[in-house]
């Protein structure tokens, strides 16, 4: 298989392809939600998906961890997402979605900690993989909480319920949960839309730090956020990929009129 025709992977120095969306078609029942969408995802970079509500950006995001498989009527109808270095289409029916989710983790729009202790919330993604050694779990939980910049706030209250934390802390707990199992990609679905500006700032800072460890794909409604934290930006509209490029270029000199209209606020 070859690098897609966007040619952007080659255009950016040091960028290695992590995943590649190729001519992806997706249906919710009869509704054609993604129309021949193509875009590259670069390793250890933050890629932002922007666009007005209903443009398919969350739908695209949820293809990456096969979340659509949970509901009947959803259909991957053509094309695929090739994951590297495997060079395998992760949407292929003979790829186990659970295996995909073990490598591609996710943080949701609203913090959704499990009704468990802070410790068990983070340990969950490890227990799911069959890890039960206490000292190993302790180490991994601690490093995940440190990675999510939450350790200092919760190290002496690990047995408390995750739901007792503030909204921003809960979201960082969910990030720690996603981090604990060392995923290759973390998907963020508007992770700050339920948070106040201060909590938002700390999550954004965290995302920039995290790209040292993982590849990040983030859906956001907030264009300033995309501009602040992402290396690449994709603008989607009505299920189509309008423009993909280096974030600075998209925000300063978009190639397409539609992108410019959206970014300058003339539309959307």
């Amino acid at each position, binding site marked *: 298989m070859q690098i897609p025709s966007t040619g952007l992977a080659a255009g950016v120095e040091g960028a290695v392809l992590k995943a590649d969306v190729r001519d992806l078609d997706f249906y919710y029942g009869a509704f054609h939600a993604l129309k021949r969408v193509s875009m590259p995802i670069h390793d250890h970079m933050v890629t932002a998906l922007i666009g007005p509500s209903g443009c398919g950006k969350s739908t695209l995001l949820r293809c990456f961890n096969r979340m659509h498989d949970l509901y009947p009527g959803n259909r991957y109808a053509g094309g695929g997402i090739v994951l590297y270095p495997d060079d395998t289409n992760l949407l292929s029916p003979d790829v186990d979605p*659970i*295996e995909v989710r073990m490598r591609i983790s996710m943080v*949701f729009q609203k913090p*959704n900690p499990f009704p468990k202790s802070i410790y068990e919330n983070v340990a969950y993604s490890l227990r799911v993989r069959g890890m039960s050694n206490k000292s190993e779990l302790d180490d991994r939980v601690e490093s995940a909480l440190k990675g999510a910049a939450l350790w200092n706030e919760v190290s002496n209250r690990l047995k408390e319920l995750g739901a007792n934390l503030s909204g921003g802390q809960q979201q960082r707990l969910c990030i720690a949960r*996603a981090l604990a199992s060392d995923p290759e990609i973390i998907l963020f679905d508007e992770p700050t839309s339920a948070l106040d500006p201060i909590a938002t700032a700390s999550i954004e800072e965290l995302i920039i730090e995290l790209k040292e460890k993982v590849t990040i794909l983030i859906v956001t409604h907030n264009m300033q956020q995309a501009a602040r934290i992402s290396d690449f930006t994709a603008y989607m509209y009505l299920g189509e990929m309008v423009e993909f490029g280096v974030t600075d270029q998209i925000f300063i000199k978009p190639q397409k009129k539609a992108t410019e209209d959206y970014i300058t606020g003339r539309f959307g």
Partner: protein
Amino acid sequence: MSATLSPPHSMPVGSHVSDRLSRKASRHVKERIIEALLFSAAAFSVFVTGAIVYVLVKESWVFFETVPLSDFLFDTQWTPLFDDAHYGIMVLLSGTLTSSGVALLVAIPLGTIIALYLSEFAGFKVREIAKPFLELLGGVPTIVYGYFALTMITPLLQKIYPDLPGFNLLSAGLVMGIMIIPYVASLSEDAMRAVPMALREGSYAMGATRLQTALWVVTPAATSGIASAYILGISRAVGETMILAVAAGMQPNLTFNPTEPGATITSYIVQVALGDLPHGSIGYQTIFAAGLTLLLMTLAFNLLGYWLRKRFREVY
């Protein structure tokens, strides 16, 4: 505040909006009447409950004037109809606890498994078909269950244990368990389905399987609802009458061995209430003391349920 008063937004369209406040007290009266009707409906149920408690306590008082409480609680025989009368409620209590125990051993595991299956594994169509059938099982009259126990289950069990008497607590308990399954399953399923989808998605996104999600996320999140379902199941078991009257033998018997016949509090009450004991005799008064015991037991379970609901409420 602005200097000019504008009419409030809640003013109904089309009503006469005069520039002065009208003294329309009639609307007030109408609302009072409705309020009073609603209140009396609510008060009626409280009144009935109060009346039941009053009768039970009053009649039990008569009983306890003759029989000391210590005999009632600690005597190991229950023979109120004999010349040598003994009034040890423990005997009936043991029958109730044994049969309920057997029933719950059937209903709680099976009911929970059915609930998990319907809520987390079954497809939409399966659930739509299975749930009404399950609820139908809960609508079968208990006398039918009683005969089912006596004429089907007991002979079946006798093939395994030839020594099993024709009347026994085991087969009554097993069938009672089957009867309670729908209550436990249906309420537990409701509790599980009320768990927000976001929690399940969070679990799946971490790479969990369906079973892991069901057992480690959905079940703990639904604990309070599941506990209420269990409590309701316990109350049904403790209060069940007909199955035991038909299939368990109505012989007062201090035992926790389910393969023996036994009487429960409820089946004893039926026996005496339908018998030819004269009203007002001490033998007749026993049923009020037994009834009061039953009421206190179910009250205790309801309080436990209430406490559990508060303790585990909305952890998600």
